[in-house]
């Protein structure tokens, strides 16, 4: 009788150990799966399982002027990085909810809401949507920036296992040095079904 009792004891201890691993290492409340990055570069279409993403232009700005109304133009805390993107959903209408810049140290930047540019892209199937994302980035973090776009997840706010466009913006150290001192001002754009050219404008000083 001793052998079966020993077997049962070992089995119970093993079950407890497995349960402990499941509860601690496989916590369902933590992000378990990294997004699947599809690397790309400016001017080249990055094909995802649900859409195509092409960064068509990237440039710096000091201000982004509002297109409508009399609001003052917001100034970047660092440098505005303006990323023009062409996005096409390929299978079904798709909300490209998650747009970030990631710097060479792995820090992520959300689109700057004060710039009044696009914050996401809602695309009909097969219909290209043109969008301008504006990010406010620290001047010393410009070189090596990457643009990331994916569907994201409205329910869980994660990129859990999503296919993600990861586009190298091609910003060199020399670009970073010159972009820091930019005084360019552009009109804000959001999304459009027609391609658009960024319009550089001159600001008028408001009397104090």
């Amino acid at each position, binding site marked *: 009788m001793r052998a079966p009792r020993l077997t049962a004891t070992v089995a119970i201890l093993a079950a407890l150990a497995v349960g402990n691993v499941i509860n601690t290492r496989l916590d369902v409340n933590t992000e378990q799966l990294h997004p699947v990055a599809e690397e790309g570069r400016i001017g080249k279409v990055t094909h995802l399982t649900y859409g195509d993403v092409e960064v068509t232009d990237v440039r710096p700005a000091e201000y982004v002027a509002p297109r409508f109304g009399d609001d003052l133009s917001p100034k970047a805390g660092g440098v505005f990085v303006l990323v023009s993107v062409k996005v096409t959903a*390929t299978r079904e209408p798709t909300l490209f909810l998650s747009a970030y810049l990631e710097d060479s140290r792995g820090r992520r930047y959300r689109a700057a809401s004060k710039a009044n540019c696009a914050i996401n892209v809602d695309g009909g*199937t097969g219909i290209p949507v043109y969008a301008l994302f504006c990010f406010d980035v620290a001047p010393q973090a410009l070189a090596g920036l990457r643009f990331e776009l994916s569907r994201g997840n409205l329910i869980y706010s994660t990129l859990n296992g999503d296919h993600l466009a990861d586009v190298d913006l091609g910003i060199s150290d020399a670009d970073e040095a010159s972009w820091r001192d930019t005084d360019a001002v552009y009109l804000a754009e959001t999304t459009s*079904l027609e391609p658009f050219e960024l319009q550089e404008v001159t600001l008028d000083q408001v009397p104090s």
Partner: protein
Amino acid sequence: MTAPTSWWRANRIWLAALPVALAAVTAASSYNLDAWWDTGLHRELASASQGDFAEVTESYDDGLGQTSRTLAVRLDELGTVDTYPYPYDDPGPPPDGVDAVSVRLRWRAEPDQVLRGCTVALVDDQGRRYEADSAAYPTACVPENRGGPTDPHGDVGRGEVPEGEQPRRPSWTTTPVVLVPQGRTITQVLVWWDRPGFVRLSVS
């Protein structure tokens, strides 16, 4: 003297219960499966060929509890139109390389049925889905200004028609427009209110 009982024999009831317990644990952890089911189009409520009515009764929950809607819908014709009603802009031609496809649907339902808030979509021969913009067509399934009752909310009870609107007639036609890239072959029209249920209308 009886033979010693084996471990397997002594625990046969628990061993038999083990697959049931594993199934229960899996089901209890399947919230991702629930989300997948509830957010996709997985349950065909009714179907019909072009020119025939699909008769539909769908149960759903509104703010007061479980209820249902009963209707009939028929695909009359697909066509193309020159202008598209952009939601936040003036109507204009569709973008280059894109057709504005009109979907003429004939409807029948009692005036007390809640039919607002539907989505109309086209599916091509590759399974790609194109949806009518809900901002451009908030009334893709009901007549404009005679949309019938809304879902109950606030002080508005079930079956109440918004103030200032006439009751909906028993039959009517809608023609939402969907943007579709040129050269695509549309094979189906889908209509739905609450996923995962949908109505499939074949294009002939």
